[in-house]
């Protein structure tokens, strides 16, 4: 993995969002956290890009850096044609309104002291609302996310369930008519039965408002279900970019395959029922290397079954393996 490169960017097409060579680093006592190292992304209008990875892979840092919260250490972020990373603060804030974010914990993302209608109208207050009836606009937004405006309008976040709070967050993000929606683990704090509601809602919303979406999550199945392409990240680097349809059977990168193998499956269940002891996974350095001091070359090599000397010496670059599938690994081939 854990490579760089821009082979996967689609140069010719009109893009909703382009990210080039994004780097996010945080200084901490005793060093620098390399949260995101040289990440490049493009999203076409109406497309959903899934970013898949475990905790510490930099997927959330990347999401925040796109929003310029805080601005990345280096790299370019283009929303349509506007280069956010080059804009002055005020212009940037205005441009950024076209990109909205949905967070993991919907309850803490909402100011507990404000009513739902004010929360949804927050952005309108800031940017000015050019329409006659703001109350109706808010009610329409609430209805469109499946909430009954008459019931929830005057409630405060603590009077709602987690799923309802996430719906309010989605309504709020839609208020400013964004082009791009960045969802950072939007369902991982929700109950299974509510997860499906929110996933369906995001899918419908994307179609209805013609949004591009970046969907950041750790759950392979969830990401696959909602995305057109999936980018797999590990320790701040890209491992693989793959059309989500090909995820299950055609993934090549050893890390992607490890993630897929970790999904509990029926086959696994049958093997256990038949009394076959599933071999105790060798605890070969299961610890994630520190992002303070990432491994040289390919960052995945310390946990990779295919690792060779080349992997320590040379960082793999994304190569096209099949149309639309890019892998950063020295040791796999289509």
């Amino acid at each position, binding site marked *: 993995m854990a490579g760089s490169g821009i082979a996967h960017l689609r140069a010719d097409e009109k893009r909703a969002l382009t990210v080039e060579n994004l780097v996010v680093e945080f200084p901490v006592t005793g060093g620098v956290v390399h949260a995101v190292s040289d990440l490049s992304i493009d999203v076409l209008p109406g497309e959903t890009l899934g970013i898949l990875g*475990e905790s510490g892979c930099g997927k959330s840092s990347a999401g925040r850096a796109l929003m310029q919260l805080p601005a990345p250490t280096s790299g370019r972020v283009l929303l349509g044609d506007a280069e956010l990373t080059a804009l002055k603060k005020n212009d940037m804030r205005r441009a950024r309104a076209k990109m909205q974010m949905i967070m993991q914990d919907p309850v803490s993302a909402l100011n507990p002291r404000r009513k739902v209608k004010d929360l949804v109208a927050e952005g309108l207050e800031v940017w000015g609302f050019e329409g006659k009836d703001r109350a109706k606009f808010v009610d329409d937004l609430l209805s469109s996310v499946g909430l009954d405006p008459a019931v929830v309008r005057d409630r405060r976040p603590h009077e709602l369930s987690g799923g309802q709070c996430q719906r309010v967050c989605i309504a709020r993000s839609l208020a400013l008519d964004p082009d791009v929606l960045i969802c950072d683990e939007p369902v991982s704090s929700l109950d299974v*039965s509510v997860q499906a509601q929110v*996933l369906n809602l995001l*899918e419908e919303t994307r179609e209805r408002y013609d949004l591009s979406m970046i969907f950041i999550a750790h*759950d392979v*199945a969830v990401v696959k279900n909602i995305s057109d392409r999936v980018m797999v990240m590990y320790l701040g680097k890209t491992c693989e970019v793959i059309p989500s349809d090909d995820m299950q059977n055609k993934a090549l990168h050893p890390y992607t395959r490890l993630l897929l193998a970790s*999904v509990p499956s029926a086959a696994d*269940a049958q093997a256990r029922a038949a009394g076959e002891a599933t071999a105790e996974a060798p605890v070969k350095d299961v610890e994630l290397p520190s992002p303070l001091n990432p491994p040289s070359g390919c960052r995945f090599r310390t946990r990779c079954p295919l690792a060779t000397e080349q992997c320590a010496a040379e960082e793999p670059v994304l190569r096209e393996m099949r149309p639309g599938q890019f892998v950063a690994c020295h040791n796999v081939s289509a």
Partner: protein
Amino acid sequence: MTSESKSPILVVENLRTVFHTPRGDVRAVDGVSFELRPGETLGLVGESGSGKSVLGRTVMGLISNDARTTVTGKVTLGGVDVHGVKRAVRRKLWGTEVAMVFQDPMTSLNPVKRIGTHLTETLRFHLRCTRKEAEERAVELLTQVGIPEPKRRMRQYPHEMSGGMRQRVVIAMALACDPRLLIADEPTTALDVTVQKQILDLLGNLTTERDMATVLVSHDLGAVAGRTDRVQVMYAGRTVEQGRTSEVFAAPTHPYTDALLASIPQIENAPHSLLRAIEGNPPDMANPPGGCRFAPRCGYADTTCTSDLPLLQPLAGPGRSVACHHPLLAGAAPVGSEHTHGR
């Protein structure tokens, strides 16, 4: 199955846990019964508010009668009536007869204690062994749960280890005095995907090796599907369906089980496929709906469902039963919501 010939280590009979809160009584566990034999693994599945974690803690006796809690029913653990004995007696069971693995290994280890102390204090307290013996045994335990360099780890603090390693420590701690029953409360929820499988494998292997009985409490149907012999699906404090795990998941008979299984995104699904979501939210446990607790969210519900509480009815198959007025039995047409009785 050999385990069925052994006598049960755990018998839970009509267990109820009621919390008295300012908002009213919350019936977190509302009449649950089951048995568990050595070597057997039971899955307790449900969403938040289903009472599965409270059930696990009440079974253990960590939750018991006090000023704000009323526990009724009976839990018999290795022949001891857990809620009928004095606190001090109950405490003697903890660690030796029954042990618990918690959800979040980041918070279930004391941040100011070394890993070694976590293990040795249990050993020295229960087994009354010397410091040296306890340390040797602790190193052995860490090795058993797959922690490399156990001697070095003993001197570390929890924050110096990764989540997966910490959960292994928690498991080692639970196993220190060879308990016969292990209650694992969402043991993998807080862990990374690649680590989850390792922890589940570890728990499975330890259960087999030690002939322990294990209760796996989880909201993750995938985790439970592959790792348990029997499963009990909980909704709003009650068991809605139970039976062999493979049978329940292959042919769910309760509409809730069915809907829950269908609402999970599967990796086999085509991209952008809509999921079968369960409408509405889990009920407010201080004020649960009358009749079947699931009725307000159920596509099959009729007036019987909103008035009469369904009880567990045995079905074909070992230990299989369901609490539903309109179970989804193969061949039987589901009672549609428009097909209402006596409106």
